[in-house]
């Protein structure tokens, strides 16, 4: 008992010291001392309680197969903790930055995707036990492991010898993305021969997740082996993977949500033979292997070198159809608002309200249509007279696949030249190949599908080649598992070097750093598209970019408890592949004016670390110039995919962050955090509109009056909470969170001269068209509690210490089911009637009351 108390107190002590970790240079994580077990356990379980956010449709294909746990790991900073744990109900983004402004390293290897800069968090989902050693920084601070983007950087140390020596068995129950989780981890620690092993595996699953028709089935495994050769060399290898399959939820229009009387209405599923079938199933399995060499060259110099490889597929299924009625239940022509006569609007409303099969995908109709679809396909494979007859599916389930091979090499040298001066130098080489293609997943009762594009056929009836997806294999019959449609590769290579100097003096710390990189990418078309025979097949032009950045910072130490710091950075950044090619599915044409984005950022802050009071306040400013984006959507009038290539995107993100942690009385403390920002576009953007199946440019360099529009993440987020830690090994905290300044992401074409032509400027209708929709402010109440029981007290025969740890977190206790967590305007506009409700926005709702409860045994 006394020993136990002792370690608990040690933990408290350590915990109190932790906020020091956000001083300018963070130290590397050292192996966790067993004495900290309980406090660490409590903390770690808090991480488990972070709701998993599904990336939404508007994030496009690339992120869609992923689930992310949080943008950053749990930090020790009162603000960062709040941002991580409390602000995620409403898609809060730190400083309003996109996900591409945050970097993640595992064992020294950079993990982000080169095509869009996102970190694929899903690749290590469910491996919480082995990813507990982490360093997170926020903003422009210097680190010893990477140059870093604007938002911050997270470094996971998952090496086997750094894992706590223990066995852990954990079961959790939840009503969020998954209902059950079982997790097993065993780590040996470093043995006398210099070996350490670590294993972890988990399964997370739900027959049906929070929203109707969704399910979740994710497995995770992790293997780590370390061999320490002597005091100077540690060689580590880890391999992990997370084969995951889930049924997705889609956002829908308010009209349908109301009819379904369910804010979590999901248009992606329908009944098939009485079972709920989801048409949009995300699958992903992209295992990662990382080899790391840690070399202590001298007492003052160390070199960390990593090589990593990731390969595998992620995919999302969806319906495709050929000359058939739109199968999506919330297609606007199926809704009451499409009826001009109120009698029929009411009848359609009744029909939709009373018949679930009308609100959901009617799989039976899709099958029946295919059963009846007898057809003869002529000149199959381009062979004259080669006719094939049978049931030509009008509807299929297609699988949109990205097969990625990614490898990288990263080496970082840290050297403390003197007591006051240390240098870090790094060199990185990254390579990524993405193969994008579609496969037939299910013919839905038909015999075959044909690899043609109905829009090309329709628009160019006299050009038999125009409808071909692949002129090299015209009229190809495809069956389940066959590739069809688009098929292209993306190849990106990036090399970079960076150098950093940190100078520490009695009152002042200074750092300067610079990074230089070279990025090149190209598209390689594997099929010759009928509409773009000269721009679709083979290798595109290679795009090359040289970029550099410089940053620096200064910390003034007023005394041992009060700091002031100021950091600044200026960098150029190569455009991402996703935003460079206007329609990579069909052609290799890029935006006209491909140039690097320029980003200027500064931050100024104050930190106070008193024993009973910790405060951090930071003001920041960031300016983005020359940004690019490509938006793609299905336009049912053109009956085709329309691409908006947006250029000249300028943004200003500015605001303050504030975090406080005050010890009130014994174990009771008060925590509070606020993020008050203003994230605006500050330029008139330029849009060029193209259609996937036409070489014509619909609109060229249209001015989008986007100035002063908001970046759609909450501009304001607040939390205040009470935290009680009992000396009897339990704790509870309750937080009240408030969010304001949330906006829908806007449709650029509604902010053009042609969209408002004919409307009186300043009239109500004009405002309806032009104004950005502000969402209602929201609040939630969350609670989290835990208890750790040392079993040895009851079971004295146990030799090792055994802990049974209970945790339960309940979020949105007030069960507010009307929290719009985000949404987007459809990228269409009714130019004729200027009726903004013809193509209304689609919204996401945060979960109502939801919980996560776990019980774990550790020994």
């Amino acid at each position, binding site marked *: 008992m006394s020993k136990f108390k002792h370690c608990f107190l040690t933990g408290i002590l350590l915990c109190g010291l932790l906020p020091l970790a956000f001083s300018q240079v963070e130290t590397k994580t050292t192996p966790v001392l067993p004495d900290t077990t309980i406090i660490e356990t409590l903390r770690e379980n808090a991480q488990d309680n972070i709701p998993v956010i599904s990336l939404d449709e508007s994030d496009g294909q690339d992120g869609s197969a992923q689930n992310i746990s949080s943008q950053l790991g749990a930090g020790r900073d009162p603000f960062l903790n709040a941002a991580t744990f409390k602000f995620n109900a409403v898609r809060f983004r730190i400083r309003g930055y996109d996900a591409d402004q945050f970097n993640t390293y595992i064992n020294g290897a950079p993990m982000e995707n080169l095509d869009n800069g996102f970190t694929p968090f899903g690749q290590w989902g469910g491996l919480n036990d082995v990813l507990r050693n982490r360093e997170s920084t926020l903003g422009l601070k210097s680190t010893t492991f990477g140059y870093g983007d604007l938002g911050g950087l997270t470094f996971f140390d998952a090496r086997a010898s750094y894992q706590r020596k223990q066995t852990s068995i954990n079961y959790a129950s939840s009503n969020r993305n998954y209902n059950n989780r079982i997790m097993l981890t065993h780590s040996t620690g470093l043995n006398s021969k210099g070996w350490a092993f670590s294993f972890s595996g988990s399964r997370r699953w739900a027959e049906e997740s929070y929203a109707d028709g969704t*399910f979740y089935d994710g497995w995770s495994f992790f293997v780590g082996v370390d061999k320490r050769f002597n005091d100077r060399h540690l060689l580590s290898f880890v391999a992990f993977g997370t084969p995951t399959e889930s049924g997705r939820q889609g956002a829908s229009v308010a009209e349908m949500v109301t009819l379904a009387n369910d804010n979590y209405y999901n248009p992606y599923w329908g009944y098939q033979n009485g079972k709920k079938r989801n048409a949009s199933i995300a699958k992903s399995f992209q295992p990662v292997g990382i080899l790391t060499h840690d070399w202590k060259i001298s007492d003052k110099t160390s070199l960390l070198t990593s090589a990593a490889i990731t390969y595998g597929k992620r995919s999302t299924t969806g319906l495709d159809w050929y000359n058939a009625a739109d199968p999506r239940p919330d297609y606007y022509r199926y809704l009451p608002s499409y009826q001009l006569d109120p009698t029929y609007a009411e009848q359609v409303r009744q029909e*939709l309200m009373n018949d679930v099969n009308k609100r959901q995908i009617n799989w039976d109709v899709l099958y029946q249509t295919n059963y009846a679809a007898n057809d003869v396909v002529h000149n199959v494979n381009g062979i004259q007279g080669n006719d094939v007859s049978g049931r030509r599916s009008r509807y299929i389930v297609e699988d949109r696949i990205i097969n990625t091979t990614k490898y990288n090499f990263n080496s970082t040298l840290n050297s403390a030249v003197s007591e006051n001066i240390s240098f870090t130098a790094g060199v990185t080489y990254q390579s990524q190949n993405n193969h994008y293609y579609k496969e037939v997943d299910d013919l839905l009762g038909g015999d075959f599908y044909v690899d043609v594009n109905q829009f090309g056929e329709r628009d160019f009836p006299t050009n038999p080649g125009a409808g071909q997806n692949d002129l090299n294999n015209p009229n190809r019959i495809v069956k389940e598992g066959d590739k069809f449609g688009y098929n292209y590769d993306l190849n990106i290579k990036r090399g970079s070097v960076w150098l950093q100097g940190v100078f520490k003096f009695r009152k002042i710390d200074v750092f300067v750093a610079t990074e230089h990189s070279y990025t090149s990418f190209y598209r390689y078309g594997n099929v010759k598209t009928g509409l773009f025979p000269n721009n679709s097949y083979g290798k595109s032009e290679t795009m090359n970019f040289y970029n550099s950045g410089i940053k620096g910072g200064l910390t003034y130490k007023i005394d041992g408890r009060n700091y002031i710091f100021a950091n600044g950075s200026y960098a150029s950044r190569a455009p991402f592949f996703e935003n460079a090619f206007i329609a990579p599915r069909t052609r290799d044409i890029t935006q006209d004016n491909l140039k690097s984005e320029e980003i200027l950022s500064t931050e100024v802050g104050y930190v106070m670390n008193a024993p009973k009071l910790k405060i951090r306040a930071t003001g920041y400013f960031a300016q983005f110039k020359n940004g690019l984006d490509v938006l793609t959507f299905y336009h049912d009038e053109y009956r085709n995919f329309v691409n908006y290539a947006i250029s000249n995107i300028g943004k200003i993100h500015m605001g303050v962050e504030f975090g406080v942690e005050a010890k009130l009385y014994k174990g009771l403390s008060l925590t509070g955090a606020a993020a008050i920002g203003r994230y605006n576009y500050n330029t008139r953007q330029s849009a060029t509109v193209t259609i996937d199946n036409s070489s014509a440019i619909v609109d060229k360099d249209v001015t989008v009056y986007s100035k002063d529009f908001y970046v759609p993440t909450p501009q304001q987020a607040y939390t205040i909470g009470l935290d009680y830690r009992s000396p009897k090994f339990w704790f509870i905290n309750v937080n009240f969170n408030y969010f304001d300044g949330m906006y829908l992401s806007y449709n650029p074409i509604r902010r053009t001269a042609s969209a408002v032509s004919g409307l009186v400027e300043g009239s109500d209708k004009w405002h309806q068209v032009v104004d950005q929709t502000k969402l209602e402010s929201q609040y939630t109440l969350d609670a989290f509690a835990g208890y750790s029981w040392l079993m040895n007290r009851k079971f004295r025969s146990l030799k090792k210490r055994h802990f049974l740890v209970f945790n339960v977190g309940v979020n949105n206790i007030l069960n507010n089911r009307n929290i719009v967590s985000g949404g987007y305007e459809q990228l269409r506009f009714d130019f004729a009637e200027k009726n903004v409700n013809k193509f209304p926005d689609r919204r996401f709702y945060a979960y109502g009351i939801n919980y996560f409860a776990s019980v774990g045994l550790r020994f």
Partner: protein
Amino acid sequence: MNKFLKSITAVILVATAFTFSACKKSFDNPPGAADPAIVANTSIKALKAMHTTAGAIDVITTDIIISGVVVADDKSGNLYKQLFIQDATGGLQIMLDANSLYGTYPVGRKIFIKCNGLAISDYNKTMMLGVRAIVAGSPSLEGIPSNLISKYVVGGSLNNPVVPTVVTYADLGGTGTTNMQDPLIGTLIQLNDYRFATPTGTYSDTSAYKSTVNRDINSCGSQTLIVRTSAYANFAGVPVAPGRGSILAIYTVFGNTRQLIIRDTSDVRFTSPYACALPPGTLFYEDFEGHAVTTAFPYVPVGLPGWTNLAQAASEVWTARTFSANKYAYMSGFGTGQSTVTTWLVTPGIALTGTTKTLTFKTIQGFILTTTPGGTNVEAGLKVLVSTNYTGTGNPWAAGVVWTDLTSQATLSPGSTTSTFPSSFTNSGNINLNAYTGTIYVAFRYEGADPAGTASDKTSAWEVDEIKVTGL
């Protein structure tokens, strides 16, 4: 205790692996189409009989159920948001506010329609079933809203036979007044021995205007009907069938105009030669109606199989022209700048039989005056010649080819001094060919001149049509 925990671990692991590894859902395929347990209680004819006032919208308020087999769907795009169904008593147009109906209701599918709540009306005498809706303040018959279709329309078995009713022009009522209750309206019919009046051009409008196009068809020049085709049909840009034969179509009327709607080009079975069967004793007949023409320069030279069309002097040849829906051969030396313009148009060989052998044709001579009226006479000559030793190839004027001039037996167009062209063709009258046996060739030789200046111009235009040789 340690062992106990370890065994618990093992049990949990194994249980998890086995219990949930079959999480991937599998789905049965639903069963295929079959007729539902619904019985039609009213025939299409009886339903149509309830609609008596043209233009009225009659809402059906009783539990009428009809059934029929889909005879035309929207697969080709010629029909849009509509189907035609028929039963033994008649056919009916069904209006559905949805695209790609053929996916669910392909030709041959039996469907059942619960009519209570629907409305029947007519679009200028072609009846249709839909809903009565108030659009922009006035009632109209509209398609059944797509999400309500399944309330009214129930699909049945597939691949039921669809057999057209073979009818004649007279069965359709000729040129008389149409009857809204005509049971043929809305059904699939077949007409035999028809052809396009002009067997060139496309089924419909290929321009950006996308206008619906009416093309005349006739049975050897009479009994004209209309084939009406949407520019959105996927065969809009396909050239019309050039031959002659049977046509399948949905029979519709628009007022007193009879309009046929084909489902796709396979309904047009014009596989016989374009020319109609000739009357007994006709040994040769050519009216140029099957010839490709243009209505502006450059014109299409007459190039029928077996014919010879050659310039002996100058280079101008006979061209095919069209005026007022009639095609003919045309030749003029005007603008050639040549002092002699001599051009031959020779028929294929004509095998003579019978005892009374006659040649007839008709002509128009245009531009006989330099200006009309009152100009200088510039008549060119037209000679009608017959040969028995021409071979059908080579120069008709070659040495040894003997031509007999029969021009004196023919009445030729005198031209007009009051307008550039006479208003009608001049019949040649019978030209006696009794003197000939075996195979003959008939030649029309244009003899003109257009030297520098206007003094000795012979530049009038000659048009020749309906060349016929009979032997009785």
